[in-house]
């Protein structure tokens, strides 16, 4: 150990810190900082016209699951809140399943095209991203509303006599979210399928596997990283979706995102909104944990 070596090492350490500083600053101000503010706000008392008063209170956290009866001051389970949580998780899960069911064949189709047309197909998949989310959602609304394209067409065909009520139901929210998040499923699936060695299909067929078993025993296990990535990319934003349930679900079919907005808006209960945001974050983290663990376990069926 010479002094020179020590000096070099010290310089390296200094350089390393200097290089990660931008990332650290960004993380502090863009991620950890705001999160910390939300966390602190969730333990304060709501101000009369919004904002917060700096008085410590657990009411917001209790308010997530319970409501205080105005008359006898007892706590009751907040059914409405639980319904919203349950609907959010259910719709997000179904959105993930639907986007996978549509996205997998789509990604497979694109990945098996000749390289030149592949770029075009991928480009087509990403086109909806170029349009504002709100406009896309209203476009869906235009298709499925009672006087919209779909109902008019079905009535014209004579399949139905009266328009089907789709808009302002959970189904409408599902259709909207599946449409909005489909590219997020297709792209990682495409990346995984693109890397898949198609010669393995022949090996599977050669070893007496039917088409279904080749899919289940060869293709799906190998492209699983893409399935995991796509599912996470769809499930997480679905859970916090705001615009889609607002426009297509109407006032009744709220999801967590709308509920949080309600607290910061009309309800003027910022601490409850903050506590709900933290809850959403925790649900996402728990869901991810379960999913990633289940996915890595599943990769070795005999293990």
């Amino acid at each position: 150990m010479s002094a020179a070596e020590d000096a070099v090492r010290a310089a390296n350490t200094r350089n390393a810190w200097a290089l990660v500083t931008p990332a650290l600053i960004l993380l502090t101000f863009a991620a950890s900082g705001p999160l910390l503010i939300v966390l602190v706000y969730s333990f304060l008392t709501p101000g009369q016209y919004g904002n917060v008063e700096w008085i410590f209170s657990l009411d917001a956290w209790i308010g997530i699951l319970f409501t205080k009866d105005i008359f006898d001051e007892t706590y009751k389970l907040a059914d409405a809140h639980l319904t919203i949580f349950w609907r959010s998780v259910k719709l997000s899960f179904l959105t993930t399943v639907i986007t996978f069911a549509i996205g997998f064949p789509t990604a497979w189709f694109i990945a098996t095209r000749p390289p030149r047309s592949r770029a075009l197909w991928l480009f087509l998949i990403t086109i909806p991203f170029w349009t504002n989310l709100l406009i896309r959602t209203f476009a869906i609304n235009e298709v499925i509303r009672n006087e919209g394209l779909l109902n008019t067409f079905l009535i014209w065909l004579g399949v139905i006599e009266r328009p089907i009520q789709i808009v302002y139901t959970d189904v409408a929210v599902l259709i909207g979210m599946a449409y909005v998040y489909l590219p997020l499923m297709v792209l990682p699936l495409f990346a995984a399928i693109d890397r898949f060695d198609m010669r393995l299909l022949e090996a599977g067929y050669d070893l007496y596997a039917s088409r279904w078993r080749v899919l289940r025993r060869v293709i799906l296990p190998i492209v699983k990283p893409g399935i995991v990535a796509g599912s996470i990319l769809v499930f997480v934003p679905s859970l916090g979706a705001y615009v889609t349930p607002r426009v297509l679900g109407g006032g009744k079919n709220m999801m967590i995102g709308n509920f949080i907005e309600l607290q910061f808006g009309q309800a003027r209960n910022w601490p409850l909104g903050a506590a709900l945001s933290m809850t959403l974050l925790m649900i996402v983290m728990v869901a991810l944990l379960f999913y990633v663990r289940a996915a890595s376990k599943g990769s070795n069926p005999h293990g």
Partner: protein
Amino acid sequence: MNDIAVEARNAVKTFGQGDHAVRALDDVSVTIRKGEFFTLLGPSGCGKTTLLRLIAGFEMPTGGQILLDGADITDLPPNKRPVNTVFQSYALFPHLTVAENVGFGLEMLNRPKAEVRQTTERMLALVKLEALAGRKTSQLSGGQQQRVALARALAPQPKVLLLDEPLSALDLKLRKEMQTELKRLQHETGITFIFVTHDQEEALTMSDRIGVMSAGKIQQIGSPRDIYTRPVNRFVASFIGESNFLPATIVQGAARLGSGHSLAVEGLTPVDEGRKVTLAVRPEQVRLTAEDEADTIRATVRDLVYFGTDTHCHLMLSDGEEVVARLQSPASGDAGLSEGQIVGLRLAPGAVQVLGD
């Protein structure tokens, strides 16, 4: 006939359509016997792999039939054919262990778990990979992957094992090892092997019979010895080993060279009289003697190339035709010849083949 494992009847395969159609297989008929090590040999693009893929079921023939044990399997998908393939790329399943790869076929055949395990162990022992049963295939060397691919294809005890240039990705030393290994496996299992290669040495050393292919057609089928010593045409004679080609005319039951010399040849019929033919002579069958000896053809030494075990002597006949003689190098390394020297050239009657067109 009961001893036929696989038969292709007038198999035709065209790729593409209209003007761009390529005829990969052009009316190929071949029978492969049970328990035989049969090699399809030819340059790339000759249709040998296409024929193998027709037998495996990965391609459907445009015309003709494929029979297995006398039954028509032309329309059966690959997973319904008791035939397994060792792929050129091995195509091992990367998400499975070595043992799971080997057991895959049996599992897909819904064999009981105990049987799958036992057979897998037996197969791993057969290819000497017991110690690596639990490894992922990506952790194996090329030679080991090759063995896994073999064990995987042999485990379901197929009626025919198809091998698509399985040794081409290995280095020379490993390739030699695997050649011996393959022969041993074929002996021990008694399974019919159909082996595709473009390597003539591989084909000669391993096969019971060889089918030489070119331009979508089978050129000749025979034992390695037959193919080497009695090639039927110029393609076979030049693709397998080296040959000297000499133009000649049949005159009075003998082949007359441009230089005026007559060579006794076998297998001529009276209708051949006057026909222009090509003679093929292997370089190692060319003997050199003193120029004034009787019954020899005079030739001039043009060039001597030393190859270690032997020396190639390039000779020119009086009519300008070139002949290469492969002479065993003497202990001193000096063949005792020099450029420009006139020598006598002798060709034994059995060494000269009259080729068809």
